[in-house]
């Protein structure tokens, strides 16, 4: 058995075993999966996404549109290009039908992120990039050289050209070694730059492999200057059958022969519009591939060629062979007046339609591009970013010019970053004069359904034609209509070809069409790499109170409130949520319950103008609050809608403590800071978050006074000594505490605040009294809803004013202004049909309404559009009422009390009766116990 039948004579390496589509093969270290497959004669690698046509390896690096594979082992990874997967021992892969499949398992690999700063970032380690890095490094600048290939040199190992008298690959290795000797230079191999953002912020992915501590690293690099030496991609021509396995870019075939020692076929036809393909033909011939003919669209042909026949002024008009090229049909260009088709037997067809400078990153950076008629390519024009473009990336085509251009760009970049570039002469190479290229986009035919423009998206000239015949003129529109250029190869080989075909069909110049927008990522990137270690709690921190361990030990079930974990309820054996919450509610209404409310936001405000600031931000008057007292407050946006609510405690003449809702603590602090800094800088106030410095236990229920008295024997707890909405300092369970008499349940209640360190001791003492039931947020929600107390963000939605919530009493009439006051006098805020917070009682007392459900007036749904009167904001089962109930925002709701409305739930119209929003103890008799 001949192993690797298409391996070039004399090419050896460490043997690696791999499996593809269920068959075992061997390749060499240094291969890509694509080169190893070609070495084994595998032509059809994948099938196309839309038409299911067999596809082979078309390119040799990141521009590959066809050879999409899925890695199966060691870990399933979808949609990789066989041309960029470095072969390793034990690799198991298969070809894809255009789409990959995500693994159901969690990826065990680690991914990391790195931040880097440098004076000069050079992207690309080809001839221009290495030259740029060398001259920048010589100035002493901090240089980062990022290159996506495993070995340096860019195209040099592909072309086997000579630099400074050395084989290109050797020169590149020596250049890299010299760079490694500079202490301020960092070389990142296997690192593809995929995004270029504002102010020279670039993002790159370093592929470190399965054996490294992390599979990939995401580099975020801020560079003072950037040199883009990103090279050029060869492009195809649209002709019939140009998607067959065996049709390959000429430069790719040259790379397989020279870099990988692989023969991509035995007998080749070369189809070209420029001279570069002749070099490929020469190298293939030297490697033992028979070049049957060079088909050159130019009537004068190309540079002198001592190989096979040159068919000047000819076109490839057909390709035969289902799973691989078997013959190529060649015809004279009809414009030349000649006739007579020829069929040439071949298993390989090399194509060169021209070269596209890789301007993706330049375009992402906001750089403008211009179409160059002579080169038939988009070239970088102006940009405001601090960037140089060097070498083939700006349209230079010969090695010597690229080397010199890179060296000059590196020196310019270093100097612009404030360094003095030394006098270093650029590396030299022989420049071969080339004949002028011609720009051919498509080969005329009667039927364009087999002329592929975008191989990955299966877009043909016929598809583009349908777009232009539909009246589309802009390439951006054609791209969206046909999907050309939108696949994960980012149109590297198809983008400009699409423009060329559109221009041909519309009979305009390519330059008139403008360009499509280049967007990151230049090469595909996995979400795992973007996330790095920012996963789980490292992405979204979990905040817990000092009592958390106790809640966990008692089997509490938690809910997330912002980043906080709050106990939702504490089920006993055999209890579901419904039973547990009813039990907890009853315990609070009949005896005493305790809840961990440490998560409430707490802001300490100090300064002579603290009272003035609070007067301006809260709707109520806060400056008249005596020391020792507490007031409920609502904050509004300038448009009059509710922003947050909480209590304000006056600790001293010049010191207050404001509480916020759990989820809004940071926003309220930001709000205060913003007004202080931007509108009222003359107010002398300091605002400090003290949320985590305090642990707070709410003690609620008619039995709470006795519990507190037992824990705080020194505190006079009777109603006269310690009235509602006041606070006292006391020792509770021997701990220094601030006790506030406030209630969020309507029951006699206290909030006991202690240092966070003492929180657990306080909580255990409260529980140790034996008379207290721990309760969670669900019970708290039910109890407050029974009292009609709204929860900001649940019963409000950014359109709701305090008056809508029945909180007109918190709007100060005495103050000349507060934030939102002027809006409360706008006609829209005074409309009688505003949505008011009301209660709802379903006719069926066991019926629980879904939150978010709409309300309508009629028992039968009319034809749409159905006028909705409002929606259910909160809905619970009430132990105290012995039935279900809900809160809702209803248009003109306070005028509808007693009315019958309907809640459509599925096909049903659930009847409800509107009530006032306070359903329990409307007189407030229970507040004082």
């Amino acid at each position, binding site marked *: 058995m001949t192993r690797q039948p298409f391996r070039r004579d004399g090419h050896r390496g460490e043997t690696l075993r791999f499996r593809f589509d269920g068959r075992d093969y061997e390749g060499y270290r240094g291969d890509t999966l694509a080169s190893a497959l070609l070495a084994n004669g595998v032509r059809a690698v994948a099938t196309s996404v839309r038409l299911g046509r067999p596809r082979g390896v078309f390119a040799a690096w990141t521009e590959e549109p066809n050879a999409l594979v899925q890695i199966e082992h060691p870990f399933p990874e979808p949609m990789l290009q066989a041309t960029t997967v470095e072969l390793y021992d034990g690799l198991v892969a298969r070809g894809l039908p255009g789409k990959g499949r995500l693994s159901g398992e969690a990826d065990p690999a680690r991914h990391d992120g790195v931040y880097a700063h440098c004076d000069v970032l050079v992207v690309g380690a080809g001839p221009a990039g290495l030259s740029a890095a060398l001259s920048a490094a010589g100035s002493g600048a901090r240089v980062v050289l990022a290159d996506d290939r495993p070995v340096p040199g860019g195209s040099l190992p592909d072309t086997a050209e000579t630099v400074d008298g050395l084989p290109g690959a050797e020169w590149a290795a020596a250049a890299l070694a010299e760079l490694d000797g500079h202490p301020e230079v960092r070389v990142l191999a296997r690192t593809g730059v995929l995004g270029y953002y504002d102010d020279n912020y670039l993002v790159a992915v370093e592929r470190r492999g399965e054996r490294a501590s992390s599979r990939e690293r995401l580099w975020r690099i801020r560079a003072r200057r950037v040199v883009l030496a990103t090279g050029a991609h060869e492009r195809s021509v649209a002709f019939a059958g140009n998607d067959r396995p065996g049709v390959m870019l000429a430069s790719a075939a040259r790379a397989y022969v020279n870099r990988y020692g692989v023969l991509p076929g035995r007998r080749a036809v070369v189809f070209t519009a420029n001279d570069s393909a002749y070099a490929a033909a020469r190298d293939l011939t030297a490697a033992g591939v028979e070049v049957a003919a060079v088909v050159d669209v130019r009537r004068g042909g190309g540079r002198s060629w001592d190989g096979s026949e040159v068919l000047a002024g000819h076109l490839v008009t057909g390709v035969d062979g289902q799973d691989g090229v078997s013959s190529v049909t060649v015809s004279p260009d009809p414009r030349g007046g000649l006739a007579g088709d020829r069929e040439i037997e071949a298993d390989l067809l090399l194509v060169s339609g021209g070269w596209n400078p890789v301007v993706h990153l330049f375009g992402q950076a906001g750089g403008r591009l211009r179409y160059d008629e002579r080169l038939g390519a988009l070239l970088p024009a102006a940009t405001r970013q601090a960037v140089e473009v060097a070498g083939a990336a700006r349209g230079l085509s010969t090695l010597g010019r690229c080397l010199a251009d890179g060296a000059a760009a590196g020196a310019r970049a270093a100097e612009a970053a404030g360094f003095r570039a030394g006098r270093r002469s650029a590396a030299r190479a022989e420049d071969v004069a080339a004949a002028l290229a011609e720009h051919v986009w498509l080969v005329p035919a009667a039927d364009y359904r087999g002329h592929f423009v975008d191989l990955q998206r299966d877009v043909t000239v016929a598809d583009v034609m349908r777009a232009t015949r539909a009246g589309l003129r802009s390439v951006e529109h054609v791209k969206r209509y046909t999907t050309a250029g939108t696949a994960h190869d980012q149109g590297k080989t198809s983008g400009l070809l699409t423009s060329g075909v559109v221009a041909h069909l519309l009979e305009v110049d390519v330059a008139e069409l403008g360009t499509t927008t280049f967007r990151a990522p230049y090469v595909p990137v996995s979400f795992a790499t973007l996330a790095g270690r920012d996963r789980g709690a490292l992405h979204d921190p979990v905040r817990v109170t000092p009592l958390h361990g106790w809640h966990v030990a008692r089997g509490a079930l938690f809910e997330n409130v912002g980043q906080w974990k709050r106990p939702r309820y504490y089920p006993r054996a055999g209890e579901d949520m419904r039973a547990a919450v009813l039990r907890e509610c009853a315990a609070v209404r009949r005896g005493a319950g305790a809840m961990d409310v440490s998560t409430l936001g707490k802001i300490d405000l100090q300064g002579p103008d603290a009272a003035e600031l609070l007067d301006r931000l809260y709707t109520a008057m806060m400056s008249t609050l005596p020391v020792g007292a507490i007031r409920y407050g609502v904050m509004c946006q300038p448009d009059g809608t509710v922003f947050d609510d909480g209590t304000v405690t006056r600790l001293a003449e010049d010191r207050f403590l404001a509480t916020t809702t759990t989820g809004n603590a940071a926003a309220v602090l930001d709000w205060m800071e913003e007004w202080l*800094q931007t509108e009222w800088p003359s107010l002398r106030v300091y605002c400090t978050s003290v949320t985590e410095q305090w642990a707070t236990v709410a003690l609620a229920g008619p039995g709470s006074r006795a519990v507190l008295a037992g824990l705080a024997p020194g505190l006079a707890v009777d109603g006269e000594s310690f009235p509602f909405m006041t606070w006292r300092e006391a020792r509770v369970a021997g701990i220094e505490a601030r006790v506030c008499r406030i209630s969020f349940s309507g029951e006699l209640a206290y909030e006991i605040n202690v240092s966070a360190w003492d929180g657990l001791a306080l909580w255990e003492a409260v529980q140790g009294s034996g008379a207290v039931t721990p309760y969670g947020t669900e019970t708290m929600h039910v109890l407050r809803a029974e009292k009609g107390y709204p929860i900001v963000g649940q019963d409000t939605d950014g359109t709701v004013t305090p008056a809508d919530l029945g909180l007109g009493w918190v709007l100060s009439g005495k103050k000349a202004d507060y934030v939102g006051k002027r809006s409360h006098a706008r006609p829209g805020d005074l409309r009688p049909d505003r949505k008011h917070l009301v209660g709802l009682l379903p006719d069926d007392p066991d019926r629980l309404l879904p939150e978010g459900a709409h309300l309508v007036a009629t028992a039968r749904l009319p034809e749409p559009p159905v006028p909705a009167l409002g929606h259910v904001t909160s809905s619970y089962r009430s132990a105290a009422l012995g039935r279900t109930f809900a809160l809702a925002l209803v248009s003109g709701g306070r005028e509808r009390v007693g009315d019958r409305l309907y809640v459509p739930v599925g096909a049903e119209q659930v009847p409800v009766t509107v009530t006032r929003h306070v359903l329990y103890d409307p007189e407030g008799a229970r507040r004082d116990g």
Partner: protein
Amino acid sequence: MMLIPCPWCGPRDEAEFHYGGQAHVAYPADPAALSDAEWARYLFFRDNPKGPFAERWSHAAGCRRWFNVVRDTATNEIHAVYRAGGQRPVSP
């Protein structure tokens, strides 16, 4: 990722900042004296130029100070940075 020069901390990544919309839209001295239309103009109307725009930023994950920036909305180029309450520098 813009590089925003905080007047207090120096150049920092955009991700550290919080955007605050158009600058120099002062809270009216006496809202009650404004007509509904004048108040609505303060509440809801903001400029949206393509080009230089004076806007407010806060260094939320840094010094937490608010300041003003003149930024070109088309290119993200920052022309000037100055303290809250300061005058917008003359051109560009």
